[in-house]
């Protein structure tokens, strides 16, 4: 069963005269992990930034095509509402350095001017930190600033911050590329657990990571969607020669 959570159709993006994304159409699967794989500069980060309209921060970016979130075109929605539904975690951990751990988790509410009672706040903070697998490590230091946390813990704090808004889709932009192998393993386990409750779209250039945790994989090259299918199939019997070449070169 495949609920139509997110459908991209005929999406093209250009910045100035450069085409970054070239006519991509793809559907994402409800409560599954989809990874977007490809060499640097293939447009994978731009693709997921289109999904929560963060590409609008880039000057001179032009987008055509549509992205439907539960059948509603996100380009006709208020970007602020789109971003509350679709959370994002970035390459480098970026907790807010001026806020405590507690305030970081509920930052989305504070930033959006949503008032919460203190019991409700406590509840959201605890639930989100538990879901991010960080609660037991920081529960005694909630009101301290997060500067003493390790890189991996900071990244899990960022995941908790995104989960606190109860998004239905979580975008992860190479979430482990700035982390050591142990923290990377932690984040991968966490992402695998999270798919119980949220649809995950993850960009990575690490093909082992893609094969370890994802259900579906899309391979991008030069702005084009070369191949998209179940991870198992794409890794064992790739249809396109370019996919096969990329996989064998990166594995070797």
């Amino acid at each position, binding site marked *: 069963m495949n609920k139509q959570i997110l459908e991209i159709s005929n999406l093209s993006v250009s910045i100035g005269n450069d085409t970054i994304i070239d006519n991509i159409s793809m559907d994402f699967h409800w409560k599954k992990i989809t990874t977007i794989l490809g060499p640097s500069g293939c447009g994978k980060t731009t693709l997921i930034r289109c999904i*929560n309209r*963060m590409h609008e*921060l880039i*000057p001179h970016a032009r987008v055509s095509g549509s992205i439907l979130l539960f059948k509603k075109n996100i380009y006709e929605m208020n970007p*602020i*509402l789109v*971003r*509350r539904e679709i*959370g*994002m975690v*970035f390459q*480098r951990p*970026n907790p*807010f*350095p*001026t*806020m405590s751990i507690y305030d970081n988790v509920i*930052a*989305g509410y*504070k*930033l*959006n*001017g949503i008032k919460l009672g203190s019991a409700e706040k406590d509840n959201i903070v605890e639930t989100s930190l538990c879901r991010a697998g960080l609660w037991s490590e920081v529960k005694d230091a909630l009101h301290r*600033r997060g*500067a003493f946390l390790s890189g991996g813990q900071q990244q899990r704090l*960022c995941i908790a*911050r*995104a989960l606190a*808004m109860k998004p239905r889709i979580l975008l992860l932009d190479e979430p482990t590329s700035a982390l050591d192998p142990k923290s990377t393993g932690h984040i991968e386990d966490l992402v695998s657990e999270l798919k119980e409750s949220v649809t995950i779209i993850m960009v990575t250039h690490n093909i082992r990571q893609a094969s370890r945790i994802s259900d579906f994989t899309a391979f991008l090259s030069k702005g084009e969607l070369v191949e998209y299918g179940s991870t198992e199939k794409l890794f064992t019997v790739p249809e396109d020669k370019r996919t096969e070449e990329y996989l064998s070169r990166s594995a070797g």
Partner: protein
Amino acid sequence: MRKTSQLSPEDRNIRIYETLFSWILKFFSVLVVATLVGILATILIQALPSFRDAGINFYTGKSWDPVFKHFSATPFVVGTLATTVLALLISIPFSLSIALFSGFYLHPGRITSTIRLLIDLLAGIPSVIYGFWGLSIVVPAVRQFELFSGRVPYGVGIFTAALILSIMIVPYAASIGRDVIALVPSDLKEAGLALGATPYEVVRWIVMPYSKAGLLSGILLSFGRAIGETMAVTMVIGNANKIPGSIFDPANTISSIIANEFAEATDPIYVSHLIHMGLILFITTTAIGLFGRRVIKKWSSH
């Protein structure tokens, strides 16, 4: 024959030049520091007669009247504080807006650099030009306002001086503010936007807390600039030697009274009282500078 040196002639030349060069650097650096110490010593020594003559009355008295030998700095301390604080309050909305607009909202490009250039040019205008412009434009405008609102239409006074000063100090707070705001890491701004925050909410909850130390340092710098500004203020403040009753009254600041009366002060004790006020100004600006540094250090250590 004894060898006078192990070094070859070239090596010896290099050594001589190096030593000479470092001595030249030391000479000029020490000279500047010595001048600073000299200025402070001169002011202190020349202010001594004033300390002895007026004592505590210099700070507690209410009037300044050289003819009757009443010497109290109070009217000018009040005038300076009123003018500077008012100028600061007027300038902050402008400098903060410019800093946020050019440091956060605008993408780097031609418009940003033009705004930057124009704001920096504002800092380069000689203060006598501000004074002249104030006399010909701002004073008549304030006079109209005073007539309209039923006040004595002086035109000149604390309010006029504060208006001119506020324009003069905008570039200092604005350019430092813009630089610290531009230094806020873009991944923090992105994190805020990705959580569904509007640009205003990102400014309010992320950019401002992150850059508060730098913003404050810009404001303190402009405060230090305003407190010592002499020429423009002297031209439009009205030069009245009494404690001002309202912000529309003519008054004098410490620097404007010194500029006005130093040349005509013939009595040595009169000169000493003026120098005493110079000492107050010197200590105040130094204290603001030191305080600013401490605050910045404390706030930026998170």
